[in-house]
């Protein structure tokens, strides 16, 4: 799947944040201070390749550039561009009109440019290839029936069609296709996009929807039928960038101007295919492209496997330890407050519980307009997630102390603070520690999602592995993450020996 299909959750939350976009943009009008060009890419292979090409081209022209890889979906990238978290990223014109501008009157290229310019964004010339919705068939089958365009399908009502679920549901998907071309087929089913390719190859369906730059087209030897009525929106590849890019890096426009028109459909499909099916690192695919097309020696930076794991481990530890420490510092006092005042307690526990129920991807999407991309929004999201188990266990640990014990401490004459410190917290320590342990283990797992907004960590290889369908890469992130979770678990069991008073661990006996 090449073109990014943002999850429903992300879209829903992006809609919630829509009014904030202008705020984020105006708040970001302060003069930029960073001097490294930051280039973003979506969680799709063609986006990563295009961004990598721009990155290496910039470096080759003396502009220090950083590639923030696979930052998740369209919404995150566009918001990051609006708020100057990144300076440039590859996009499709269809996505700009359909998802970002939300204005049906904006159709032509000059209209798009004008609308983007109002937001301080510039758009490059089309790069040369497009990634439209298209209909594909097995080449042999298409040849046998003599099919080359979608309108030819009218004469073959017996063909079995299998479309991705999203295509079935979108009003500009199957319903539009059926009505405009008056298609007679009755055997039409919805299925997963990746499964659709396999079903097509296996002959259990005859045609499916695809994107015209999908690497699978060549792999499965498919024929792409012409959209001869031109009903699908145009998804032409372009770069979006901050409008002030030329002022900040005068060398850049000239360098990037060499790219438009250099990508033809076949070249792009071949590059996607090399990255996705042959698992050649995108940096090398990009470097080869620059060399063969522009005669430039690209600067591919590909680190070794163990160096990569080491780097990801450090990033992951940083995310987990800092967010967890901050959560402990806030959540334990909150739990104490909640235990002391029943009314406030209900409200506090309810609030942290609601935060906890926000899907992690959605919470990350929340953070981008507020904090941009990178480590900090991920840190804040992890911090918020870690609150609930600690608050709740502190609260229940304190409430579980038997009334006679609490009252004994009171009648003994100890002041409230001393009772809390010397009696109640030690008695609740096992519960509090268990809450922190739960938070830590969940935190290690959730931190992998940070990769979607550029926070690095073990999620980076996992996300790349999912995108490239590489089990080895997925395991390279998932196995260390699982090991870290186990280590954290063990660490807390070890800590329990020192932090939980011995009297609470010894067995009752000697009656």
């Amino acid at each position, binding site marked *: 799947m090449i073109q990014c299909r943002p999850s429903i959750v992300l879209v829903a939350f992006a809609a919630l944040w829509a009014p904030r976009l202008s705020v984020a943009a105006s708040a970001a009008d302060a003069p930029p201070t960073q001097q490294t060009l930051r280039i973003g890419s979506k969680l799709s292979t063609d986006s990563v390749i295009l961004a990598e090409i721009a990155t290496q081209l910039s470096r080759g022209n003396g502009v220090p550039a950083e590639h923030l890889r696979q930052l998740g979906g369209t919404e995150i990238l566009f918001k990051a561009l609006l708020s100057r978290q990144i300076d440039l990223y590859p996009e499709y014109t269809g996505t700009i009109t359909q998802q970002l501008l939300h204005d049906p009157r904006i159709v032509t290229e000059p209209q798009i440019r004008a609308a983007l310019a109002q937001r301080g964004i510039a758009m490059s010339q089309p790069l040369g290839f497009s990634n439209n919705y298209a209909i594909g068939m097995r080449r042999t089958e298409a040849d046998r029936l003599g099919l080359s365009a979608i309108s030819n399908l009218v004469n073959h009502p017996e063909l079995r069609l299998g479309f991705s679920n999203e295509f079935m549901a979108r009003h500009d998907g199957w319903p539009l296709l059926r009505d405009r071309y008056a298609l007679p087929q009755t055997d039409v089913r919805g299925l997963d996009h990746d499964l659709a390719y396999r079903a097509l190859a296996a002959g259990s369906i005859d045609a499916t929807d695809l994107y015209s730059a999908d690497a699978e087209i060549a792999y499965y030897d498919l024929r792409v039928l012409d959209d001869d009525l031109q009903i699908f929106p145009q998804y032409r590849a372009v770069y979006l960038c901050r409008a002030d890019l030329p002022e900040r890096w005068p060398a850049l426009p000239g360098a990037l101007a060499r790219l438009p028109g250099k990508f033809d459909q076949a070249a792009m499909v071949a590059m996607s295919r090399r990255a996705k099916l042959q698992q050649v690192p995108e940096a090398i695919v990009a470097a080869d492209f620059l060399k063969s097309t522009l005669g430039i020696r690209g600067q591919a930076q590909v680190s070794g496997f163990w160096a990569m794991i080491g780097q990801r481990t450090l990033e992951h530890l940083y995310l987990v330890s800092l967010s967890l420490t901050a959560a402990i510092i806030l959540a334990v006092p909150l739990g104490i407050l909640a235990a002391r005042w029943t009314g406030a307690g209900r409200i506090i526990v309810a609030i942290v519980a609601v935060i906890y129920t926000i899907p992690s991807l959605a919470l990350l999407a929340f953070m981008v307009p507020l904090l941009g991309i990178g480590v900090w929004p991920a840190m804040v999201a992890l911090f918020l997630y870690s609150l609930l188990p600690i608050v709740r266990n502190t609260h229940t640990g304190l409430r579980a102390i038997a009334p*006679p*014990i609490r*009252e*004994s*401490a*009171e*009648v*003994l*004459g*100890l*002041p409230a603070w*001393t009772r809390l410190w*010397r*009696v109640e917290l*030690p*008695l609740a*320590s096992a519960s509090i520690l268990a809450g922190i342990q739960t938070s830590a283990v969940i935190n290690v797992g959730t931190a992998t999602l940070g990769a979607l907004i550029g926070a690095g960590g073990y999620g980076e290889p996992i996300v790349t592995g999912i995108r490239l369908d590489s089990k080895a890469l997925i395991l390279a992130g998932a196995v260390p993450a699982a090991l870290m979770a186990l280590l954290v678990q063990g660490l807390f069991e070890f800590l329990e020996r020192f932090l939980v*008073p*011995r*009297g*609470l661990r*010894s*067995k*009752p*006996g*000697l*009656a």
Partner: protein
Amino acid sequence: MFSLVAIHKSYGPVRAVGPVDLEIAKARTTVLLGPSGCGKSTLLRLMTGLTSPDSGEVRFEGVRVQPDRWPSLRRHLGYVIQEGGLFPHLTAWSNVTLMARHLGWSGPDVDRRVEELGQLTRLDRPTLLRYPAELSGGQRQRVSLMRALMLDPAVLLLDEPLGALDPMTRFDLQTDLAQIFRSLGKTVVLVTHDLSEAGFLGDLIVLMKEGRVVQTGTLEQFVHHPAEPFVRKFINAQRSPLEAVAPVA
């Protein structure tokens, strides 16, 4: 020492105590006696400030106790409850000395006082280094008594201190308690439902029923001059099993 004046206390619609007027005599052992739910424990809680009356006054040495006075007043109270109320995360020694150390007592002062109380309650030093879970029920109550006596309080309040013990342990501890009360000469208020315990330990017995005081006096007065039929019924309810056995010739 303590006086309760026209006290009423309800928990929701249920009347726990009231109206009650009661004078706790100085340097004597007063036993609050009665069946479960008669309000005897509530009276003791009123004397610790854990419960406040709906109406009426709690007076200490003639002065009404305002809510803000309880924290300082509690240093003059020693409190022992049924299961001891010991802090399970602290050793017996730490339980006993917690408050003294909080008040900044010196190490030698603490040690001297623990030594005295250990002799009084017959607990040796190794036992004091154990955690409550590692002690027997009787030992726990002795530790609890040491903790209550640590600051040498004016009043000792005990809520069914022997209620959870087996009969043998209970007997031993009753004997020791009687001796301790006599040697210290403190004002003691003890709650129990056991008539023989009340007779054995109490200088004065306050018999209660449904939140009111039925009769105040000695066990002898209860037997010979019961104030109402309930008194006789309560006494008869606690018959000795030995009555059914033929006396040994």
